[in-house]
């Protein structure tokens, strides 16, 4: 159970005065302060927790953001930045004594610069819109988090988002060239630009993945890549996760870097097949999807090579896509894995640890043992190329105590990842969700070093309070409400 920090009663008592002052800001900013409209901002994709903020501000210019933050700085009021609200770790969940700054109006692509192979966009532009802006010229923006039709580029930078193709093309941090940032005291700074690397400390690198704790992004410059001429996928079934894992290691050992390499365990295979009928082998204990992209001569040759490796690793089945439709069909089940698992159970809880790949069979075995201990089923999907594991814990929030058990199970899985030489979170962020586990991975000194960095930007700890760092203050009553099947936000988005 995650607890919220006790809100500052003095700030709560001043709500009317604060809202009045927000309305009076110059330049004028759209402010939401009525309960009905505030309800839309209570949570993100970690829907088990919610908090109604003091107010929501919807600026549309950098000058407005600067004015808002200068005001909050002067008045000592907390601020929670928000993009599309798709965080799975509660990164955008408000605090009762905070102003949410929503970047939804920062929705313009400012420049497509093909000569410098980059796009300049406001921070609220959805990830996929970047690719749409350059697709007709044969380019694309590589990081592809599963919520890419909704999640914003500003949110991607804040969370250092990944995606199934990050094995070959990198995470957000490898694809961002520049940013415009308003610091917690309202100062505007520019980091990077259309050039590479920083001439001084790499503040852009530090900002990427800082989970909204260091400021508010208003503009981002990303690099774009030429779309590879062809892509094909292999669908490989195995009799055991050990042989699937060994095959992954063999693919990497022979120098192949697939565009994507995804594994699913038996429960995930069955759930996906029942949902989308992708033709997955139901007898397999583990399924591997390997995608190769590049010039067709290369792709065809490597498909053959991976096929041979699959045979050498005792694959029970192996199909190579021969058309774009078939490639997409192979992916359909994987991309629908989360909603497919959602059909098996009223609720599920998605975990996100990373482990060294070789530890996979052992960690899966331990998760199975935990599943029995907690009396909750689990299905596993795995970014096999980079060791990022997404166990989906099935539970029913209507049964008393089951959410708590699911959370306890999840925490055990993440500790298992750390014990195996891995980390708490590979791509979803620490947020509210994994905050209290940070001291499992880091020593008190490690965390103190990180907290000092926070203070260099935000000495008052007003920005995105209660996230990432273990809570030092007294807890308020737990802030959870039950969200039941069908009530999941963005339930129609594929998640993987």
């Amino acid at each position, binding site marked *: 159970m995650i607890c919220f920090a006790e809100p500052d009663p003095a700030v709560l008592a001043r709500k009317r005065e604060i809202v009045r002052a927000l309305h009076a800001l110059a330049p004028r900013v759209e402010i939401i302060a009525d309960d009905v409209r505030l309800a839309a901002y209570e949570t993100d994709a970690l829907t088990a927790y919610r908090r109604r903020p003091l107010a929501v501000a919807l600026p549309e210019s950098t000058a407005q953001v600067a004015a808002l933050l200068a005001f909050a700085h002067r008045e000592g009021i907390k601020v929670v930045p928000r993009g599309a609200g798709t965080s799975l770790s509660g990164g955008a969940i408000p605090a009762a004594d905070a102003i949410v700054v929503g970047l939804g109006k920062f929705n313009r692509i400012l420049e497509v610069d093909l000569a410098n192979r980059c796009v300049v966009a406001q921070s609220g532009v959805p990830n996929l819109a970047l690719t749409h802006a350059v697709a007709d010229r*044969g380019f694309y923006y590589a990081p592809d988090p599963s919520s890419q039709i909704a999640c914003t580029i500003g949110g991607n930078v804040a969370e250092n988002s990944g995606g199934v193709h990050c094995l070959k093309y990198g995470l957000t941090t490898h694809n961002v060239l520049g940013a415009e940032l308003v610091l917690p005291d309202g100062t505007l700074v520019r980091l990077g630009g259309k*050039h*590479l690397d920083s001439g001084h400390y790499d503040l852009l690198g530090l900002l990427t993945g800082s989970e909204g704790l260091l400021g508010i992004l208003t503009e981002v410059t990303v690099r774009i890549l030429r779309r590879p001429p062809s892509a094909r996928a292999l669908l490989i079934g195995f009799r055991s996760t050990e042989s699937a894992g060994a095959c992954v290691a063999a693919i990497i050992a022979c120098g192949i870097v697939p565009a994507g390499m995804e594994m699913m365990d038996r429960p995930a295979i069955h759930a996906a097949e029942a949902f989308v009928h992708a033709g997955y082998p139901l007898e397999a204990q583990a399924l591997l999807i390997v995608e190769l992209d590049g010039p067709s001569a290369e792709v065809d040759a490597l498909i053959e090579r991976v096929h041979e490796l699959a045979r050498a690793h005792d694959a029970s089945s192996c199909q190579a896509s021969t058309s774009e439709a078939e490639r997409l069909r192979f992916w359909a089940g994987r991309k629908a894995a989360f909603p497919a698992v959602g059909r098996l159970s009223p609720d599920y809880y998605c975990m996100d640890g990373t482990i060294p790949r070789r530890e996979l069979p052992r960690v899966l075995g331990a998760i199975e043992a935990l599943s029995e201990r907690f009396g909750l089923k689990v299905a596993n999907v795995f970014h096999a190329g980079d060791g990022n594991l997404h166990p989906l814990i099935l539970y029913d929030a209507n049964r008393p105590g089951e959410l708590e058990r699911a959370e306890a199970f999840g925490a055990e899985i993440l500790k298992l990842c750390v014990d195996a030489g891995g980390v708490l979170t590979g791509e979803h962020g620490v947020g509210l969700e994994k905050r209290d586990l940070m001291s499992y991975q*880091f020593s008190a000194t490690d965390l103190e070093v990180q907290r000092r960095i926070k203070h260099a930007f935000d000495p008052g700890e007003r920005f995105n309070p209660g996230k990432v760092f273990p809570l030092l203050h007294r807890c308020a009553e737990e802030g959870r409400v039950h969200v039941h099947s069908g009530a999941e936000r963005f339930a129609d988005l594929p998640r993987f």
Partner: protein
Amino acid sequence: MPQPRDEADLAEAIASARGALEPIGGGSKRGIGRPVRAEPLDLSALAGIVAYEPEELVLTARAATPLAEVAQLLGDHSQRLVFEPPDLGPLLGASAAPTLGGVLAANSSGSRRLSGGAARDHFLGFRAVSGRGERFQAGGRVVKNVTGYDLPKLLAGSWGTLAVLTEVTVRVHPAPEHERTLLVPAETAAAAVSLMSAALACACEVSCAAFVPASGVALRLEGFEVSVAARARALVEALGCAREHRWLLDADSREMWAVIGGAKALARHRIVWRVSVPPSAAPALIERLAPQDYLIDWGGGLVWLGASVLDAAVVRGALASGHATLVKAPEPVRASTAVFPPLPAGLAAVTARLKEAFDPRERLNPGRMS
């Protein structure tokens, strides 16, 4: 001179230091930056590979492990550091051997930075001692990790001013089966950048693109033989190379890029600037500065300038965006010049607070990055 034997020793040396220290791995880049008045801190004992698992694509080593040792080990397993750290020895006139920690602390990347990312992009985790004398760790030993702030990014390129790295973990990559480089003549910087831009806009996966005025535009292709052959044909076609062109294969190609990455052609110059710009801005910069010698890398994004005299105000005055670092100059020049790019007020304030967070007593390389 303190010579710590291990991390605990180092922490003690920093905590008990009465004055400033200059952390030195191999010492190959000591000539870069503002001259520091500090006692040398010899880290050479913190060397050796800690863990290397080729199948996990990660390597952990103590910070002062010689880069050559790392390269040798990776090469034995057909792997490499994809950011291709350059050997700046010939340029700087330094004979000391670079270390892995030094490469990361300087965020030193070669020509493949264009397509494969910089040193900072492959720096996964570390152990270090801060200027406060605290031992801490950050990042991890896995590629995909968003747990806490990305401190490897902050430490990469901090030139030993925040903390002293003791152990580092980097991502490694498979070495390509084959490589070749296309050489095409170009008369001017503008023609060269436009040619490189065309090459990078086609789907040939050009991994490096540079212009060496004496030899022309160089475009590098790497990968499986069958793929490189197909891309080589497509590249020549896409560029309409009716003009004369020639290919350098494997060892010749590698040798050429080692020379370009280390800017060896500029070694005879007294003053050398390294300038990062938007690629399309490179020709105008060169035209305006008219340096005695120059070299363009990263498809236009990196300009090396060589001259006997080239003032900071002139170089930085010609920059609309990007940044310029004075990589090579006699000590008196470096003492009176902002070697690293001066920062606008807002960024300077954050930077000073970060320095204070790690090193409030100014023990580590004070002033080196000014």
